[in-house]
């Protein structure tokens, strides 16, 4: 589904990623962990086309996608959320989701000004779809609020709904549980499970909460100083010497 081959990324003299290989199979929930500054978000930025990798290639469904501008990568079916929430604060909750939908529909921008019947029909479908997504993440009641007025946990869920509006086949979640309390985390886990099953998604997520990662990911890769130091099942990762040394810490 997604394959990274020998990805390296340099910023000035700094090698942020060094020869990273990664294979994510269809339908997997794949975890990416590692200390701060290990290059996890950089990897996301490479996958979504924000950065062009210095070396190596990104393959999505067998197709080389690095070099494409971000909006095209998004339209190919890669949705993402952000570590620091990047919602459209002054747009309503509903419009945040609708903006995502618009990218994957047919009618052009100028058709929308003319209000062609095709556009109106499409607009109806988008409204319906967006409301379904909001219901799924439990924000249907708040659809007319400005995004900035939502609570932190709600904003994170809205980001997921917005990313899903692109009808992605691959969803990248950058620290989806950051700043959430225990209950919210629990809800988030069921949500991730649910959307993965319901929408037949492949999910790649960066997360620091080991409980969450270990319980929902089928496979985990560990980055440290830009290198991949391990990958495998949660069990294997928990018992990997190098991972314990550099990230997990010895069991108390």
């Amino acid at each position: 589904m997604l394959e990274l081959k020998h990805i390296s990324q340099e910023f000035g003299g700094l090698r942020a990623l060094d020869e990273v290989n990664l294979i994510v199979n269809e339908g997997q929930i794949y975890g990416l962990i590692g200390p701060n500054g290990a290059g996890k978000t950089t990897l996301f930025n490479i996958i979504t086309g924000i950065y062009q990798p210095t070396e190596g290639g990104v393959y999505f469904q067998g197709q080389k996608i690095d070099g494409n501008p971000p909006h095209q990568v998004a339209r190919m079916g890669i949705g993402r959320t952000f570590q620091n929430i990047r919602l459209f604060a002054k747009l309503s909750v509903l419009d945040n989701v609708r903006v995502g939908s618009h990218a994957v529909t047919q009618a052009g921008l100028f058709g929308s000004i003319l209000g062609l019947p095709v556009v109106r029909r499409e607009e109806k479908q988008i409204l319906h779809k967006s409301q379904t997504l909001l219901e799924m993440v439990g924000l249907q009641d708040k659809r007319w609020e400005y995004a900035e007025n939502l609570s932190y946990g709600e904003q994170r869920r809205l980001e997921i709904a917005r990313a899903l509006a692109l009808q992605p086949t691959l969803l990248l979640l950058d620290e989806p549980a950051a700043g959430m309390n225990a209950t919210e985390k629990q809800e988030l886990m069921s949500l991730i499970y649910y959307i993965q099953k319901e929408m037949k998604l492949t999910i790649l997520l960066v997360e620091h909460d080991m409980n969450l990662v270990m319980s929902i990911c089928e496979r985990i890769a560990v980055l440290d100083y830009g290198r991949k130091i391990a990958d495998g099942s949660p069990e294997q990762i928990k018992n990997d010497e190098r991972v314990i040394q550099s990230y997990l810490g010895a069991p108390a």
Partner: protein
Amino acid sequence: MFLEQLLNGITLGSTYALIALGYTMVYGIIQLINFAHGEVYMIGAFVGLFLVAMGANIFLALLGAMLFCMLLGMTIERVAYRPLRGKSSRLSALISAIGVSIFLSTLMALLAQTNTRSYPEVISNRTFNLGSLELSVLQISILAVAAILMIGLQLMIQHTRLGKAMRASSQDLDASYLMGINVNRIISATFAIGSALAAAGGVMVGVYYHAVWPYMGMMAGLKAFAAAILGGIGSIPGAMVGGITLGVLEIMGVAYISPSYKDAIAFGILIIVLLIRPQGLFGKKIVKKV
């Protein structure tokens, strides 16, 4: 007398507002002060004049000028700003904008000479009385066109997907990219719309004040820019209100103080407002979290 001056002020102000919208929309999305915008307005006035001279109806001429400037605006963005975007500092784009501004005004001076031209009487200057207020058909037409354009713009921004994509892009350009929005196309559309509005302003001023010349964009551009700042740069309702406020203040200054202080009064009030409300009338005060 006062009401008449107020009406004159609103008429003048609505043309400032039309130009100011282009500044504020472009700034809202790419934080660029498009200094070539005044020249787009000037060229709009010339294109309208040309079409009228060819025998076109004034409203057709208005549409023609708007269409021409749409393409002009998109071309300017494509040629002078896009190649610099993301690759060099924002200052380079600003310098590029000043370059385009000088280029366009001198080009027009070469093509059309520097003498002042005027539109023939295309809309009747007949006046009628409404109570004690004396109105001219011309004034009413200008106000009506300006109102239609501004209401249309507002509806477009609020309700169409282009408008939503524009609002999204002005809030977070990178996130917009990642939501599949072709940001370059949105920027292009923003230039097109802003330029069309400026062209409309140019034609209206040409018809109303009979003063079309290659360097008319300079002062009008500055004033409209001031109006955009006054309203709060980046805010669309702000540009509308800012433009009309500036127009009214200017006319009142001329009427009650002295015509020779016309520009000084307008800019002086701008300075005072900004001292009291640095973010402009409609700008939001951003408190940076530390």
